[in-house]
């Protein structure tokens, strides 16, 4: 008999049972794991759905609507405080300015993310130069027709996005420069880059924010002390730049020396070598790492709470202390809402990075 005769008939593919057997019950070990996983899902998912959807209170004007036995999430609490969660204490009459900033950001960002959209170079300048200026003027105000809104009034998702976007936009270029500096052959630049990176990686972000917010005014006369949110922005940007530098350096080290040598042999200058040959390859390698840092940064923005700035999580916690909306399930509802918002942004970023990876690696897919 030949080996081919020994094989059984091919498994039926496409049927549910066949799929189950192949993927979930292919061995005793896998069967046990499947059963355990199913049991854990059974333990957690139905209660969560019951709490969040089926038993939840969806309408109501006061806390009384959410009181009573067996009631789930108190969504009226979220509806009532929704403006606080999104805009913080931004004056109600000026909220249209925040909305315009959100809308403009969306309009400028979407064509940037679609690879086939035209005029990328124009779009980049629009998104990274024009848009921040417009956003700053609109949000801070103090221009004709725009009354000033001090940053102490900003809050909620607005602050989360301002901190995260600033951190992301500043940390990538600064991180690339630092990574190149750390691999530079010039000793002074290399030392400075190493000192900068290791200093910022060595201190916790909480410490940075606390120093920036509370200790800085001790060293400066009052008139000089910059705005509290601005201090946090600078702290977060420098902090994430150090992490970004190490991610980019990992990509640079993955480029074979032959690439550098070939580029130099072709007569390219240092910046041409880096810009045209090395960085395009290196950055493609480290897209997962870069996006990982972005996501970490996005979630780290909640730490601005310790310096008295309310991001969305801080705003949720603050609103929970309002006795007019204190209900037994209030904390769970608030945190669930904050969790959903964070998940939407972080999942969106990670999905986009997957898409870019596939697209950039189309030529070398395996």
């Amino acid at each position, binding site marked *: 008999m030949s080996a081919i005769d020994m094989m059984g008939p091919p498994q039926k593919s496409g049927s549910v049972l066949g799929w189950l057997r192949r993927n979930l019950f292919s061995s005793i070990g896998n069967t046990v794991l499947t059963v355990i996983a199913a049991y854990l899902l059974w333990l957690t998912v139905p209660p969560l759905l019951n709490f969040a959807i089926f038993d939840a209170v969806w309408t109501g004007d006061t*806390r009384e609507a959410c009181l009573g036995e067996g009631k789930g999430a108190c969504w009226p609490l979220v509806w009532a*405080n929704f*403006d*606080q969660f999104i805009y913080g*204490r*931004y004056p*109600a009459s000026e909220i249209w300015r925040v909305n315009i900033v959100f809308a403009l950001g969306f309009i400028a960002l979407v064509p940037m993310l679609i690879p086939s959209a035209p005029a990328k*170079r124009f779009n*980049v*300048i629009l998104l*990274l*130069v024009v848009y*921040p*200026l417009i956003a700053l*003027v609109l949000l*801070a105000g*103090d221009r004709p027709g725009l009354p*000033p809104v*001090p940053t*102490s009034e900003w809050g909620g998702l607005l602050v989360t996005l301002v901190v995260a976007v600033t951190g992301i*936009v*500043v940390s990538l*270029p600064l991180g*690339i420069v630092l990574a190149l500096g750390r691999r530079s052959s010039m000793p002074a630049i290399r030392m400075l880059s190493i000192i900068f990176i290791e200093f910022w990686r060595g201190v916790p972000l909480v410490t940075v924010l606390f120093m920036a*917010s*509370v*200790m800085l*005014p*001790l060293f400066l*006369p*009052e*008139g000089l*002390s*910059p*705005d509290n949110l*601005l201090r946090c922005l600078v702290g977060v940007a420098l902090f994430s730049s150090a992490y970004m530098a190490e991610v980019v350096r990992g990509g640079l080290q993955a480029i074979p020396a032959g690439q550098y040598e070939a580029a130099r042999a072709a007569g390219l200058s240092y910046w041409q070598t880096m*810009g*045209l040959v090395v*960085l*395009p390859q290196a*950055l493609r390698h480290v897209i997962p790492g870069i996006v990982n840092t972005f996501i970490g940064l996005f979630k780290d923005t909640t730490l601005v*709470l*310790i*310096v*008295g700035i*309310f991001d969305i999580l*801080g705003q949720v*916690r*603050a*609103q*929970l*202390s*309002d*006795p*007019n909306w*204190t*209900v*037994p399930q*209030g*904390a769970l509802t608030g945190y669930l809402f904050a969790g959903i918002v964070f998940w939407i942004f972080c999942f969106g970023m990670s999905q986009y990075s997957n898409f870019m990876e596939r697209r950039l690696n189309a030529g070398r897919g395996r």
Partner: protein
Amino acid sequence: MRNPVAALLLGILIGAGGLYFMLPYDAAAVLSGRAEVAVSAGGAVPDVDRAGAGETLQRIKRRGFLHCGVSQGLAGFSSPDERGRWSGIDVDYCRAIAAAIFGDGEKVRFRPLSAKDRFTALQSGEVDILSRNTTWTMSRDTQLGFDFAGVIYYDGQAFMVRKDSGITNARQLAGATICTQTGTTTELNLADYFRGRGLEYRVLSFEKNDEAISAYDQGRCDGYTTDASGLYAERLKMQRPEDNIVLPEIISKEPLGPVVRQGDPQWADIARWTLSALLNAEELGITSENIEEMRESENPLVRRLLGAEGSYGASVGLGPDWVIDIVRAVGNYGEIFERNVGVDTPLGIERGLNALWTDGGVMYAPPIR
């Protein structure tokens, strides 16, 4: 530049450069707020450390508003409502000071502070006054360089038990399991109380207050302890608030009061006498409703308080109508109490120790004369 990635990088660099050149200008002009720029442009800004008599008031007047440090959310003391407006006893006290200075209780900006950074924020001048349910103790008063302006709320640690347990006073808690939050003085006070009376007890400590309260709510402990004002707020988070009672015993003294930096006696006087004015107004029956009629009063005590006789406002650098402005803005102490924590609010706290001395409490303000 045919490579799109290179173009992207260049764009990012240009963008970062644009941000860099823009921020130093705008940081001063836009982000730090117009009023403070006016201060720096005017020069002659004193250092916080060198703030002598009257400097704090001067600085606040030039800035145009008061910086007030409050908690990051404590029901009844300082919490933002659904329109984002801060409310609570601590908040109203700051509005009273703003009213005394500017005649407008809204000229105040609240800075939410955590328990950890509240003292640093006051020391560094980030806030002018700390009105953040801070217990007045000797060490804080003497070692940190602060002055307490008085007591705005007499708090103290107390117990909550289930009504059906039949427990009506703290001595019956012998052998009970008590839930509390770890790492605060509540644990210490608890141990002192039971050891001092030779009673057995078990303590179940949790890192987060929400965990402690839900453990109690699920019946893992017989009692729950924290400051009395907090007990009423926590009770609202229970499945059945009405099935739980707060025991009458108070096992620790927690006099909460506003705090100012040492070194500016005039500012400390303003803080102290604003509080006294609120209490004296209640004692004399002056409310936000009858303030206009009270201005015509013949009672010499009322006339002095409202500035019709004497110049008590001027002696602390304020206008003659300072108390009128205060009462118009926030009412008297009793009104503040009832509006934020009183029996008609969800918290439902009785006046108790915080009643005036004439009503059996210990709220006793020195007279304004």
